[in-house]
């Protein structure tokens, strides 16, 4: 028995929305049904799949023609965005409903034609059976305009209840007996015995052990009664006849046993296919994500559905505490009640709880999750405890699969952390090399000047001493700026900066910038132009101030003294543009992007700086979802262009205007 599942989609979607299953056959009317399912799926925004069921009636084998047709329909389904599934089983309706329940299907669509109405009088139809057994699943019949001649999906569900089997076996023996009586003059005694084996085999295959045993008994009795001397009498006189009867009986039992075993194997392998399919689906869905929390959530969802109960994953953290990582349903919280169970499962790395050798009185079962990186347990509450003894192996392979998935998630997390650490390491080494050079230079001047004064033996006059002190102070200030920039950079790089945006007048930002650069601005003409009365920016004041300070500082450093620097603010729809124009040498062609990189500095000699200023500007502007560019102006000098989003102003922001008009006091 096989179970082929083609076309995949995440199962999460099944649970969240409508899920349609359409039954198809090699019958041309299936096209109609498929189209109907497609339309329904579109209108419900649902996922859908087409299912065919192979039954043993035809020995699971389709005629070549029918197989071609079916393949064509399946391709049609896939081209319309549906999945296709082929199921194998004894009973079409049972197989469909079992699969539909498992997949969380909400609607089953099935084609229905005029021609099989008459059949219903004799058999219960597939549609009828589906409706009878569907439970919460909606079953829809799609009428087809064409006549269905011979459906591939046949109602092979012979009433499998015992009495029917026994009745059929009685009938079969009667017919065999009549045939034998009719043919007794042609056939020899061994042929007659062989004739009686036929119903035994047939009944054993179709109805199992009980009816088969009855058939062999009846056959033996009938053979004895009609064909062994004395006729029409159950008494046995001939020892040969005793042997024949015994043989008939024994062979009957052996056949029925063999047949029964085949049936059991078939059921078992079908169950195994179902489980393999479940594991396959789990693996496939888990593969699509890397986040360990999400993976745990997916696993519990699958487990809860598969085992028809509740599921939770508990993992040990670094300190050996066990925490709930995920649970389905969300309120399943086994940590309070089953801590012992989970601990024991983690420590001994064996299944623990209900149906196992340890703590079997518990109503939960804990399966160990054991990876090189973590330990934990998959905790299940299973309603149907029969599942347990039967599926021990499956449970373990499921838990193993879970362990692998979690291990993979942990591994990818580690890889990510390593990458972050590598980046941090790189930053740290750049910072270190910078600290060793750029911080030592001013420190050298400070220590030099300081010791010169301390160890002076009267050689320094007042002016010289003052000069040295001046050096100490200015170099210390330079270091302070450098450290400030380094800290800003580290804050930006570590991703730990939370912007606290607020509306702030551009003038105010410029005001504090000018105060911070008071010394450098001496003798400079710095103008501010804007088209609005009070241009407002929506920025984090502190971070944005560092942008303006760095840009202005840059402009002052690289342009001739006395030259003019201009700020311009303009609104452009939902953007605000800030320009900084200078009259310096501009940016060397080809370096327009490089200058925003860390530790890249202008080529002009003798200008102090760390190469961090513009990198900080870019970092902050990008964090504000804005852009920063530099171009050379036609009239000479560089132009930095900042573009920032400008959301709508809060309504109450200019409430002051009303005051001014109405209640202003003349002073």
């Amino acid at each position, binding site marked *: 028995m096989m179970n082929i599942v083609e076309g995949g989609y995440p199962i999460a979607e099944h649970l969240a929305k409508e899920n349609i299953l359409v039954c198809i056959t090699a019958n041309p009317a299936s096209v109609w049904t498929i189209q109907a399912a497609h339309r329904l799926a579109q209108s419900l925004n649902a996922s859908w799949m087409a299912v065919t069921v192979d039954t043993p009636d035809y020995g699971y084998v389709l005629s070549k023609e029918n197989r071609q047709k079916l393949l064509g329909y399946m391709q049609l389904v896939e081209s319309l965005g549906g999945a296709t599934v082929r199921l194998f089983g004894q009973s079409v309706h049972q197989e469909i409903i079992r699969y539909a329940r498992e997949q969380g299907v909400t609607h089953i669509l099935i084609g229905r034609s005029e021609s099989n109405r008459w059949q219903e009088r004799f058999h219960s139809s597939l549609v009828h059976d589906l409706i009878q057994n569907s439970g919460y699943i909606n079953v829809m019949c799609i009428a087809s305009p064409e006549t269905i001649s011979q459906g591939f999906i046949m109602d092979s569900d012979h009433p499998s209840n015992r009495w029917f089997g026994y009745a059929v076996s009685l009938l079969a023996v009667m017919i065999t007996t009549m045939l034998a009586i009719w043919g007794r003059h042609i056939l020899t005694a061994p042929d007659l015995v062989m004739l009686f084996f036929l119903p035994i085999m047939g009944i054993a295959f179709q109805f199992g052990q009980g009816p088969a045993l009855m058939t062999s008994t009846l056959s033996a009795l009938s053979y004895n009664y009609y064909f062994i001397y004395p006729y029409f009498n159950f008494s046995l006189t001939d020892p040969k006849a005793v042997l024949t009867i015994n043989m008939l009986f024994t062979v009957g039992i052996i056949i029925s046993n063999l047949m029964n075993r085949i049936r059991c194997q078939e059921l078992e392998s079908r169950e195994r296919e179902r489980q393999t399919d479940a594991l396959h689906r789990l693996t496939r869905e888990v593969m699509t994500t890397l986040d360990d929390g999400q993976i745990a959530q997916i696993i519990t969802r699958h487990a809860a559905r598969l085992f028809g109960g509740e599921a939770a994953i508990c993992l040990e953290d670094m300190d050996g505490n066990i925490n709930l990582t995920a649970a389905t349903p969300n309120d399943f919280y086994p940590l309070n009640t089953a801590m012992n169970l989970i601990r024991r499962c983690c420590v001994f790395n064996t299944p623990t709880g209900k149906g196992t050798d340890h703590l079997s009185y518990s109503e939960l079962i804990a399966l160990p999750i054991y990876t090189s990186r973590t330990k934990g347990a998959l905790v299940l509450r299973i309603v149907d405890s029969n599942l347990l003894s039967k599926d021990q192996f499956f449970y373990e392979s499921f838990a193993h699969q879970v362990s692998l998935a979690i291990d993979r998630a942990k591994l990818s997390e580690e890889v990510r952390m390593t990458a972050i650490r590598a980046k941090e390491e790189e930053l740290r080494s750049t910072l270190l090399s910078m600290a060793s050079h750029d911080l030592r230079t001013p420190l050298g001047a400070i220590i030099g000047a300081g010791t010169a004064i301390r160890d002076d033996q009267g050689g320094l006059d007042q002016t010289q001493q003052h000069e040295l002190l001046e050096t100490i102070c200015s170099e210390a200030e330079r270091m302070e700026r450098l450290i400030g920039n380094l800290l800003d950079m580290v804050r930006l790089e570590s991703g730990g900066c939370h912007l606290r945006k607020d509306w702030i007048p551009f003038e105010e930002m410029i005001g504090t910038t000018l105060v911070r650069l008071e010394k450098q601005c001496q003798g400079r003409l710095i103008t501010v132009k804007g088209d609005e009365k009070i241009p407002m920016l929506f920025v984090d004041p502190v971070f944005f101030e560092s942008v303006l300070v760095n840009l202005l500082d840059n402009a002052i450093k690289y342009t001739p003294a006395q030259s003019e620097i201009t700020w311009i603010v303009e609104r452009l729809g939902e953007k605000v543009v800030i320009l900084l124009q200078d009259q310096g040498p501009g940016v060397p062609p080809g370096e327009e992007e490089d200058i925003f990189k860390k530790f890249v500095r202008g080529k002009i000699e003798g200008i102090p700086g760390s190469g961090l200023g513009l990198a900080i500007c870019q970092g902050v502007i990008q964090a504000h979802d804005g852009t920063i560019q530099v171009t050379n102006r036609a009239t000479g000098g560089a132009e930095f262009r900042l573009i920032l989003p400008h959301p709508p102003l809060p309504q109450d922001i200019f409430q002051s205007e009303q005051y001014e008009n109405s209640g*202003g006091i003349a002073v």
Partner: protein
Amino acid sequence: MNIPGARILVVEDDVQMRRFLHTALTARDFDVVDAINLREARLFSTATPVEIILLDLGLPDGDGIDFTRELRGWSHVPIIVISARGREDDKVMALDAGADDYLIKPFGINELMARIRVALRRASMLKTGFSQEKTLEIGPLQIDTVRREVRMNDCLITLTPIEYRLLLHLAKNAGRVLTHQHILKEVWGPNYTHQTHTLRVFMAQLRRKLEVDSAHPQLLMTEMGVGYRMRDSWE
């Protein structure tokens, strides 16, 4: 001004920093008392009459902000926080806890002296009481609190009621950094403390009326991310 001889309590655990403060302040005629931790700070602040406290935040036996809150329970003695914690949140927290001013290390002695002067002047004004003063004069700014007149360089300035209240509040606390929350609560009321953007617009309008160049203010200074301060030294 009662700087000479004023008793100043320096709470600082770093030896070099303490030495610098002690030497520099003693040379400027202060009576300097050193405390190296909170225990000593509590002891000295209760045992001797102190006129001003310089307080480091990260002390070996506790946080200076807790000490500030504690002290504000019974004393108005001016507190100037001197700390290497430079984040705006730290500043706001210290100021809201009751500190009068906040200096980030490193700072120059001139900067420190200016802040001490402001704090002492405010303390003496608190003692005599504001209400008696009919006019406030801060550099070129004059406010006549009785006639509600504002003059800048002897020119009358027209203000709205809120602008006037805002200016008056800043003037009464000239030299001090007032946090956004504090100003909003005092001028607009306790329900408006989150409307910093409103405050900023009002400040921008005040600057347009009072400052020569509103983009380069001389009187109404911004402490970015913290609040505002009216400049009070006009040497």
